[in-house]
């Protein structure tokens, strides 16, 4: 043993063999297919968000009088500011897309079924946190969309029975958008939600490690080949490759389509055509179709159903023997979501 190794070993009593055992979790063969690595993608993008977010926070000033100008400073004056801001924006978009795709993969392969119900629910919490982080994020820029998005969002919470009024006041720091509102959104966006997500991710991955990734068999797989490969280095290399590809993609998008600035927030007039970010198109269309209370309560019910889906699915399968019902329900849901998103995207109002 070299001097350095001994020096370290004496202070950090970690056994090399143990370390190897921990990191070398056997990974089922189907993870050689890239689409099963979609779970690692949001985690990677999350790291990008933390790094770029902390950098942006050095210049960002969360108050109505200063926010817009500080984002303009980041975009136009700070060296590489435009690039970092664009990375943050594109990684946010891709993170949300990746979380949705990852969830669809889990859904359609039935990986949420017993014994993995808890991890599905943790995943739902991660989805909600990601969407909320995206929402609070674009409220920070203090352009027209930020202001009216935040106002509409706060009033949606107001529609929730009983606790709605309290939640709205908590969110806005008052009855309406005011001087102290933006700092709340900033703290939620940059501290509370990311910290919650780190915690949830730890739980998510711990449960995953305890249970192992669900196993799938493909028709074209030969029985004589090994069923597993090592996490380290094999799967690790796959993830590194995905990380590199993502970084190139992000960098290209940030350069070709950098984040721009819309008109500054004007509390006295709502723009004639107003749209949220793409991932809220569905909700936005839904809000146009029903009265406020109906829209909010039905959305709550849908989210609640998604939350408890592993149990509902189990119940359906026990009662009806229609073991593939979930697939058909999933297909209808996906088509509805895509349909409503496209509908919202192509019309002005």
């Amino acid at each position, binding site marked *: 043993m070299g001097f350095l190794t001994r020096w370290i070993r004496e202070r950090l009593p970690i056994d090399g063999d143990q370390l190897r055992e921990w990191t070398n979790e056997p990974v089922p063969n189907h993870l050689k297919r890239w689409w099963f690595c979609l779970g690692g993608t949001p985690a990677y993008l999350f790291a990008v968000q933390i790094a770029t977010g902390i950098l942006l926070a050095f210049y960002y000033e969360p108050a109505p009088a200063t926010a817009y100008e500080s984002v303009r400073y980041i975009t136009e004056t700070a060296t590489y500011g435009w690039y970092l801001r664009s990375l943050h924006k594109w990684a946010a978009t891709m993170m949300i897309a990746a979380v949705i795709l990852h969830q669809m993969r889990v859904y359609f392969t039935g990986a949420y079924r017993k014994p993995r119900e808890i991890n599905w629910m943790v995943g739902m919490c991660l989805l909600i946190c990601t969407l909320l982080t995206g929402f609070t994020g674009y409220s920070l820029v203090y352009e027209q969309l930020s202001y*009216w998005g935040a106002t*509409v969002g706060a009033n949606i919470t107001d529609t929730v029975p009983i606790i709605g009024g309290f939640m709205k006041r*908590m969110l806005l720091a*008052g009855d*309406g958008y005011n001087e102290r509102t933006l700092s709340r959104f900033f703290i939620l966006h940059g501290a509370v939600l990311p910290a919650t997500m780190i915690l949830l991710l730890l739980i998510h991955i711990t449960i995953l490690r305890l249970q192992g990734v669900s196993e799938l068999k493909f028709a074209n797989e030969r029985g004589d080949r090994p069923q597993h490969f090592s996490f380290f280095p094999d799967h690790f290399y796959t993830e590194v490759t995905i990380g590199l590809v993502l970084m190139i993609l992000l960098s290209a998008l940030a350069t070709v389509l950098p984040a721009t600035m819309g008109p500054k927030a004007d509390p*006295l007039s709502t723009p*004639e055509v*107003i749209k949220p970010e793409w991932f809220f198109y569905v909700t936005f269309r839904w809000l*146009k179709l029903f009265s*406020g209370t109906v829209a909010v309560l039905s959305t709550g019910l849908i989210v609640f159903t998604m939350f408890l889906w592993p149990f509902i699915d189990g119940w359906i399968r026990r009662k009806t023997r229609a073991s593939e019902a979930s697939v058909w329900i999933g297909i209808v849901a996906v088509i509805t979501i895509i349909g409503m998103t496209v509908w919202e995207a192509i019309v002005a109002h």
Partner: protein
Amino acid sequence: MSNVEEGVNEAEHRIENGALSGDRRSFFASASSLAMLGGLAGSYGTLAVMAGRFLYPAGGSPMRWMFLTETGRMKPGDSFKYTAPSGHTIAIACVGKTGKAEDFLALSSVCPHLGCQVYWEAQNNRFFCPCHNGTFDASGRATSGPPAAAGQSLLRYRLKVEGGLLFIEVSVDRAVASAEPSLSGGQDSCPGVRDPEGAC
């Protein structure tokens, strides 16, 4: 732990066991655990409550009655624009001739659905809300979209007449214009026909 220490500990255990009967011992043990748990829950609970109170916004936005005009100078059908301290423009219309507050109408431009600003579409003779396509007729009654589905009209600012002078209650927060004025909860102070041009 050295052997000597271990021996001492063991001895202590034996002494304790001898001095107190098993039952009383476990009673004291659980009582002190409970007290400790209670103390922890109490103190951290207090801190949590304090944090909650700290985060809950103090007070609402200050409201004040502002002078608008002399009632005698308006006749039914007249209207004018008033700029509130928040920066919002409010149309004040006269809809009756008894000179009472009910004869005047001050419609809020805040959509009762989710709080966007409606604007007047002269060509369609209606207010339109760009957020979720809510529409309102000239008196503020919802005619289509989510506000109509929920039966929400444009809210009205509170008005009062004192000594022939008309006052309006508005927020004096200049601010980021808190979009929500204090409003007389959509209640109709002017039942029957709602026509801003004519009488109630």
